[in-house]
């Protein structure tokens, strides 16, 4: 590989990116837009779930329970209705996600039998929110119930501390507040890299064909390898810049912690870029058309990265066959590395499995990419 020719190719490619408004938008604005959209849009937490209540009793006890709901940050009790149909209609009309029904004999049974139940109707159209709403509702009721129990014990002269013989204290590491933005935003770096890298690299070879400049390149002594390396080097640089931009934004704007090593961050990013750019380049060689190439490139990089990398949808919760497939998705290792770097404070030494997997991918893709293009008009 001749360095002078490769450098000439890189310089030319960089000048072209600089002069092309479309490429500049992809380089500069796409990462910001994407991280903003995902940072704000793709929240998986449930806060302020709208709640309607049907209090058939209207006693002090029932009001105390509803106050507990009102006090919870997870719920907004927005309306009390006076019949069951109104509650059902409200859920049908999507005015609330949760309906609480307190039976007419709520306090009576609580006093007499010491046990009663309330009905919670959950809108299950969004499985994730429904599960969260159900969980939070149970927690509210459980707290209320234990208060009632304590009171009962107290009234009957029993020791209060007998009530809770055993309990679990949870402590969540790495994402202490269980905020989904901390879970999602590190992964968006992978998404940005995949989209930006694939879009730009898929244009490289196709553009030469479409503009009729390829013939002159083929007739020159520049080799296929020099063309590939020369063309992709500027995109590795741009990719690293964009990755840094995303990280700064994640930390500075969204307050996501960055506890790991910068070296690990940039090293894994380079490995990931090699894979993405190699794929985009091969697609560009195969399709010879800029439009076709960019569409294929987005399909084979963005789709697996957004769906199967564990970026937003936890891999542990996928069905076994899909989970098996994710081992083949190269972005899974980068997303895992990103999360461990941002939240878990990982350095290069802690990321051996991820780095090994990504290195294998980079070598395999790199191998095929160097053989993809032949200097011939045929």
């Amino acid at each position, binding site marked *: 590989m001749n360095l002078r020719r490769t450098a000439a190719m890189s310089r*030319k490619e960089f000048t072209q990116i600089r*002069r092309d408004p479309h490429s500049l938008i992809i380089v500069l604005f796409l990462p910001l837009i994407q991280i903003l959209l995902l940072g704000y849009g793709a929240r998986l937490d449930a806060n302020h779930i709208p709640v309607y209540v049907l209090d058939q009793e209207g006693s002090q006890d029932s009001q105390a329970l509803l106050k507990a709901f009102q006090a919870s940050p997870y719920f907004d009790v927005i309306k009390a209705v006076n019949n069951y149909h109104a509650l059902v209609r409200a859920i049908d009309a999507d005015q609330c996600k949760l309906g609480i029904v307190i039976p007419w004999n709520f306090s009576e049974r609580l006093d007499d039998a010491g046990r009663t139940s309330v009905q919670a109707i959950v809108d299950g159209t969004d499985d994730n929110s429904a599960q969260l709403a159900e969980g939070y509702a149970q927690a509210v009721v459980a707290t209320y119930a234990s208060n009632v129990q304590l009171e009962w014990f107290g009234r009957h002269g029993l020791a209060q501390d007998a009530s809770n013989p055993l309990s679990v204290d949870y402590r969540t590491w790495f994402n202490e507040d269980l905020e989904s933005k901390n879970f999602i935003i590190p992964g968006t770096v992978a998404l940005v890299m995949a989209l930006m890298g694939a879009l730009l690299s898929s244009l490289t070879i196709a553009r030469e064909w479409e503009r009729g*400049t390829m013939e*002159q*390149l*083929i*007739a020159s002594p520049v080799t296929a390898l020099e063309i590939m390396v020369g063309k992709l080097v500027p995109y590795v640089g741009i990719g690293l810049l964009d990755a840094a931009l995303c990280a700064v934004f994640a930390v500075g704007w969204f307050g996501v912690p960055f506890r790991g090593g910068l070296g690990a961050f940039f090293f894994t990013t380079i490995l990931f870029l090699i894979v993405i750019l190699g794929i985009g380049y091969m697609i560009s060689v195969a399709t010879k058309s800029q439009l076709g190439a960019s569409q294929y490139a987005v399909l084979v990089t963005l789709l697996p990265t957004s769906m199967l990398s564990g970026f937003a949808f936890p891999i542990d919760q996928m069905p076994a066959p899909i989970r098996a497939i994710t081992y083949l998705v190269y972005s899974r290792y980068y997303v895992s590395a990103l999360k461990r770097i941002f939240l878990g404070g990982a350095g290069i030494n802690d990321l051996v499995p991820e780095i090994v997997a990504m290195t294998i991918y980079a070598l395999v893709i790199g191998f095929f990419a160097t053989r993809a293009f032949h*200097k011939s*008009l045929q």
Partner: protein
Amino acid sequence: MNDVPSIVVDQLVKRFGAFTAVNQVSFEIRSGEIFGLLGPNGSGKSTIIRMLCGLLTPSSGSATVVGFDVARQAEDVRRHIGYMSQKFSLYNDLTAIENLQFFAGLYGVKGRALDERIAWAIKMSGLAGSEQLLTGELSGGWKQRLALGCAVLHRPRVLFLDEPTAGVDPLSRRQFWELIHQMSREGVTILVTTHYMDEAEYCNRLALIDEGRIVEMGTPTEIKQTAVKGDLLLIECSPLGGGLAAIKQAPGVIDASVFGAALHVVVSAGRDPVTELPAFLAGHDVRVGRIEPISPSLEDAFVSLTGSRALSSEPPQ
């Protein structure tokens, strides 16, 4: 000029599926020679050039350029040649100087030679003061000379020019040919394709190509003399179509075809057609305006060799 062949083409064949684009073509070009491939569009000229540049692999036959086999040593060939493809193929989104710097980089031009050659190319193409303009903003003649500059920055021993003056104004075309002749004097071997007859006249030697075959080869003068067997006449008559049909029946007429608004008629030598033919045509209700002997052009040669329509009736690309 010396007699060492710079390009040797032997029985070269290129097939695209069932279509044979180049059929058993052989020729040799000496160093410093300007050799032209003349033929209509689609006759296989560009395919020959592309095989010689290593852009296409020959189906059979062989060719060497400065001693390197075009099929097996394509990269060696590429180091020693300059190539200007038919379509303008510099980067429109780079400035003139950036294009020159890019190609200098690809061809390994460095150090003092780099500045010297780029300065030369800018002067040659008349771009002094406009180096920083985007190439896409340059006019046809400038673009073409810039492309030539890019192709010869590395002082190639052989220069391939595929329809170099297509779409360029006549003045720029003449300037361009002066540059070509200057390079030839410096020893550069030049292979050029064209379908312009006047340009073909600038070549030292020509091969006339039709349907993938060489139909005649020689200097422009030789070709014109040998191709037209007999005397050539120009006849203006009306109606033109009726005249053409009638004159093909006239005694002594070998060939006749329409050239512009007149007929070019080949008659066997030793007759007196200037008196015979008007009388013959009058008998067929054709009125003759002007009749005079002319010397054959390359176009006449091409027509009588291939029997095909005149080249210049092709719209320029």
